[in-house]
């Protein structure tokens, strides 16, 4: 594998990513600034994370940057000033993360916990099995259902969870 990542030179990928980031920003409640937030995210990505090789990792980091940009935009603070402040470390705030970042993560966890509490018992129980690292076959056996039925339940529960999260955002 080459040491030089190919994605910064892949205009199709960059355009696709930028469009999706703008759509995600709009979904997360900054519709009027969605394009700006997406562009700022792309700039940070290219300036600070152009070394990333794995496009899945590029996506993950881009979402981390966007999440913070959206949060700041919703608080009414100019995201421009924050471009160099954040640090995304393995999906969690870094050691030097400021209090705002900690508060954001805490708020996100609280929202997630609340969304989970709004699900039915079957979905909550299914989610617990996932957290415990059970495989699909184990979950199906424990629940006494087929793996296809498990897929259906997963789909329904995930949909409910994401809807509940969106409503709480």
């Amino acid at each position, binding site marked *: 594998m080459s040491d030089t990542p190919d994605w910064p030179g892949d205009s199709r*990928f960059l355009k*696709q*990513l930028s469009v*999706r980031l703008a*759509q*995600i920003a709009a*979904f*997360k409640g900054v519709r009027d600034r969605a394009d700006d937030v997406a562009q700022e995210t792309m700039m940070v990505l290219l300036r600070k994370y152009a070394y990333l090789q*794995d*496009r*899945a990792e590029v*996506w*993950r980091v881009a*979402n*981390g940057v*966007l*999440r913070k940009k959206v949060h700041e935009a919703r608080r009414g603070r100019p995201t421009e000033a924050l471009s160099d402040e954040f640090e995304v470390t*393995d*999906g*969690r705030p870094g050691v030097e993360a400021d209090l705002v970042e900690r508060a954001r*993560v805490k708020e*996100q*966890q609280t929202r*997630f*916990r609340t969304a*989970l509490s709004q699900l039915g*018992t*079957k979905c*909550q*129980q299914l*989610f*617990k099995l*996932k*957290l*415990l*690292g059970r495989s*699909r076959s*184990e979950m199906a056996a*424990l*629940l006494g259902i087929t793996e296809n039925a498990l*897929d259906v339940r*997963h*789909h329904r529960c*995930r949909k409910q*969870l*994401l809807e509940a*999260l*969106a409503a709480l955002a």
Partner: protein
Amino acid sequence: MDDTEFGRLLDAYMVGDLPAADRQRLVEAALESPERAIELSQIEDIRESLADPVFKQSLVRELPDLESAEDTAWWRQWFRPLYLVPLTGSALAVVALLLVTDARRQTSPPQIAEGPGAPAGGPGTTAPGRGLSVPEFPPAGGSPATEPPVATPAAENVAGDDSRPLFELPASRAVDLALRLDADMYTAGATASATLMLSSESHVVALVRGPSGSVRHVYPADGSFDVRLDAGLQMFTFSVSGRLDPEQGGQFTLRVFVVDGPNPSPTGMSGWSWLAERARFEEVVYVTAAP
């Protein structure tokens, strides 16, 4: 990629259980559609929350177990111990009252017969087969209905004598699994949550030895030996004391055994022998108080 496969990959990704190649496919699929991109972005948020092991562990504690999910079926409501406890308690109280009254009547001072009309079956006689001993009842002030409910696991696997050598493995077989319980002290019958960190994919078996030496197989809950868990933080729950344990209070030892590497599940030998031969272990001690 169809929606079912996308959903499967999403679920695995959410809990950090997706190989790199599949992550790549997932992201490519998400970039093709705005709905999928938004969905994956929401899952990213969940992933960020779950990356905090303390938060993840607290969720595991809060979310309901399988048994409680089954108990919510409407027809089971009538058979739930919660409903049976007061009913059984009331029934026992009535029976106790009748027996005590009867016993007092039969031990009361002899009455002097005042003529031929004295009642048959006078003092000192007892009904056939019924002694004067009064069955044991709950102490005063504590009716059966107020006893704390004892949570018991769906199935209880009492391990036989074959499991005992596993508590005599040499110290050289000990391994650091960062094994932790959610408390040091429990009420008998309570459910405990254990966490451990696996450095690689491993078979995991957990046993609990009670104060009198009885051993229960508490993980996997079905008493098997072939559950293999992924590397990383893992959790399981178990009842701190067994229904059939002669002891309900005292000091218990949870010992977790792991067999890592390319070891297959036990074949051609008992699970106990397999563990005794290959497993490494860590243990943690906890105390229960009788309810």
